[in-house]
């Protein structure tokens, strides 16, 4: 290696190097600035000397490949990197916020705080999973909070990108990760399942809620493997006021088999946002660890976790999307509601992992005060929920795969958009109003939503030929234009 090019006050490739912020076993982190780049920056420099685990270099190279491909609020913005021929480094945005590490001194947190934090982390994970990355080292010190509230994931040295060579993939001497947080399949060397990050988040939520790590902090491989057959003490035994739904969510994240966890981090985020829609199973009721005989049987017989030999790439989304259906419950919209149901039902046959959210907007007047009770004293909100459920009966979906939401707003389009954004919806199905007169007077909700939604939008119409459809079409303009009724 050449003489150290990096020291406080030095300049490298235009970067003015400030103080060293962190000196770890694998890398040092320096505060840097650049006259042409806005904001405080960080320079990460790998430790390259005798006695350093060469896997640290592999991890640094992996991060050099992955970070430039990531974008969005949940990762530090990549600025540039230095070549190994001169001085390897990575320059990125210095996120102006603390990590979750200091929180460890104030554990346990309230269950409400854990649920809110868990949801923010799940949203961040969903974002990077959609960008083809599994983080594989989710833990408090790798999670920062922006002043705007978003969680930022840092340190992609152990991560896997499913469109890049996995340099860490062959490092089988030890499973790489952080002992308390590592998913069972990761302990066994599998590195491509996004649901491994869900397990780590489950550990974090459990730890923050109870103050105790669910699987301790084992230092040997045998201790790490214990989590494959030994279930943790249920959180509610340690924290009696933890609601059953939160225990359900945490224990589902901590399932040994990835397939038993939530299909995607988006599903997990959604569960944490809508506790009333979480399907409670035996997990939520558990107050004791599994019995000795049950654990013994798991350990020696039917609970062997196997790693597939051929690593097929895993789709991060696609086969388990969150589908939202906006349903107009007005009597005159009945035909379109039926068209919507047929459409959704056909989609579900090809998407066995999909989750459906049924939406209805309870429109509130701008001038009158909120009036949720109608003349008969019946709660309109409740009535709408009943009608939504009724609409969904023919879909025949089990609880947990479908949920119902009545949004109250003066502006239906923005209420739907807000829901789509907050719940990582992948595909929105919405009906267009039948009457073109009403649409031209009021503006079309479906077209506004379709124009502004960040996801796929399918607009359904019940096809009917009306006189008006024929009237105005003349021979000349029928060739080149479409008349949309």
């Amino acid at each position: 290696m050449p003489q150290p090019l990096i020291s406080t006050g030095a300049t490298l490739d235009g970067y003015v190097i400030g103080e060293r912020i962190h000196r770890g076993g694998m890398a040092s982190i320096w505060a840097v600035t650049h006259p042409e780049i806005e904001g405080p920056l960080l320079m990460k420099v790998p430790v390259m000397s005798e006695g350093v685990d060469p896997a640290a270099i592999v991890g640094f190279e992996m991060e050099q490949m992955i970070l430039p491909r990531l974008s969005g609020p949940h990762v530090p913005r990549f600025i540039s990197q230095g070549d190994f021929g001169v001085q390897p480094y990575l320059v990125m945005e210095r996120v102006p916020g603390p990590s979750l590490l200091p929180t460890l001194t104030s554990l346990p947190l309230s269950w409400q705080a854990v649920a809110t934090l868990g949801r923010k982390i799940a949203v961040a994970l969903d974002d990077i999973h959609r960008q083809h990355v599994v983080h594989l080292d989710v833990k408090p010190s790798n999670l920062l909070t922006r002043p705007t509230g978003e969680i930022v994931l840092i340190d992609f040295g152990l991560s896997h990108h499913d469109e890049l060579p996995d340099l860490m993939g062959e490092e089988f001497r030890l499973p790489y990760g952080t002992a308390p947080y590592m998913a069972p399949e990761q302990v066994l060397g599998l590195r491509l399942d996004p649901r491994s990050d869900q397990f780590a988040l489950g550990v974090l939520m459990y730890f923050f809620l109870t103050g105790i790590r669910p699987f301790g902090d084992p230092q040997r491989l045998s201790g790490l493997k214990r989590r494959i057959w030994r279930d943790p003490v249920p959180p509610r035994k340690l924290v009696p006021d933890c609601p059953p739904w939160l225990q359900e969510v945490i224990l589902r994240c901590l399932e040994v088999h990835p397939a038993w966890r939530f299909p995607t981090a988006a599903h997990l985020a959604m569960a944490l946002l809508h506790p009333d829609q979480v399907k409670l199973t035996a997990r939520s009721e558990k107050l004791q660890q599994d019995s000795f005989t049950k654990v013994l049987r798991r350990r020696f017989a039917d609970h062997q976790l196997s790693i597939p030999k051929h690593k097929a790439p895993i789709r991060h989304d696609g086969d388990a999307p969150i589908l939202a259906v906006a349903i107009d419950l007005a009597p005159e919209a009945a035909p379109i509601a039926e068209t919507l149901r047929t459409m959704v039902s056909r989609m579900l046959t090809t998407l066995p992992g999909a989750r459906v959210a049924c939406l209805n907007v309870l429109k509130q007047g701008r001038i009158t005060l909120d009036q949720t009770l109608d003349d008969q004293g019946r709660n309109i909100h409740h009535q709408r929920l009943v009608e939504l459920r009724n609409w969904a009966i023919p879909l025949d979906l089990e609880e947990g795969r479908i949920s119902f939401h009545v949004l109250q707003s003066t502006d239906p389009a923005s209420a739907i958009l807000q829901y789509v954004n907050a719940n990582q919806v992948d595909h929105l199905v919405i009906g267009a109003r039948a009457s073109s007169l009403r649409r031209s007077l009021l503006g079309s909700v479906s077209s506004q939503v379709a124009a502004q939604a960040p996801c796929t939008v399918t607009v359904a119409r019940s096809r009917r030929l009306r006189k008006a459809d024929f009237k105005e079409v003349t021979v000349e303009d029928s060739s080149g234009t479409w008349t949309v009724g």
Partner: protein
Amino acid sequence: MRLALLTDLHANRRALEACLAHARAAGADRCVFLGDYVGYGPEPQDVVELVMEEVSRGALAVAGNHDQAVSELSETMTTDAEIAMAWTRGQLGPASREFLGSLPMRFEDGPRLYVHASPQTYPPWIYVNDAPAAKRALEASRAQTVFCGHTHLRALYGITATGQLVSFQPVPSVPVPLPRHRRWLSVIGAVGQSRDGDPAAAYAILDTDRSEITHHRVPYDVDAEALAILQAGLPPSLAERLLKGR
């Protein structure tokens, strides 16, 4: 500089033209041909002429086993390949034969080695189709990066800081960085006879400034090409495999 890496053309004119057009549109500065211009396909003369034209404009070209078999009887060909080769010999003009006979077995271009199969010299034409083969191939060369074809299937192998061999199947259209301080072996998919179930033609572009390789798939008129195989009187199984990409 952007290099278009093309291999296993196999006398498939339509596939070659489609790849060359794609490469031009993608801003390729220079072509590098990794061998097997003839064999299997119905337009050996056209394809060799196209390659000669590119070479006259600065392209590089090395020889493949089928090119060698034009002048030297090959001992290891399948029946179909043998029949096609006998037919091919009758199709090539003297200039084309001379061009194929003059091609080097390998070409070193700075840190890059271009070769048709593994750089191991004996036995000739070793397939690099798994990690152990890639390891032996890299050990047989000192080049930082080896580019080859022959298997018809795209792949990337690399050696990490800990000496581990990494295997990877590149995703089409996604650039993969090849850090310069590590060694890489990059196998390019076939232009003229796909074998991975997707009948589209394959080639790759190497950006030497960024040290990034991007594999591309290029659809072309496979039906017309398969018909030309039948019309040339070549074995129908060659037309069938082209349609299926197997």
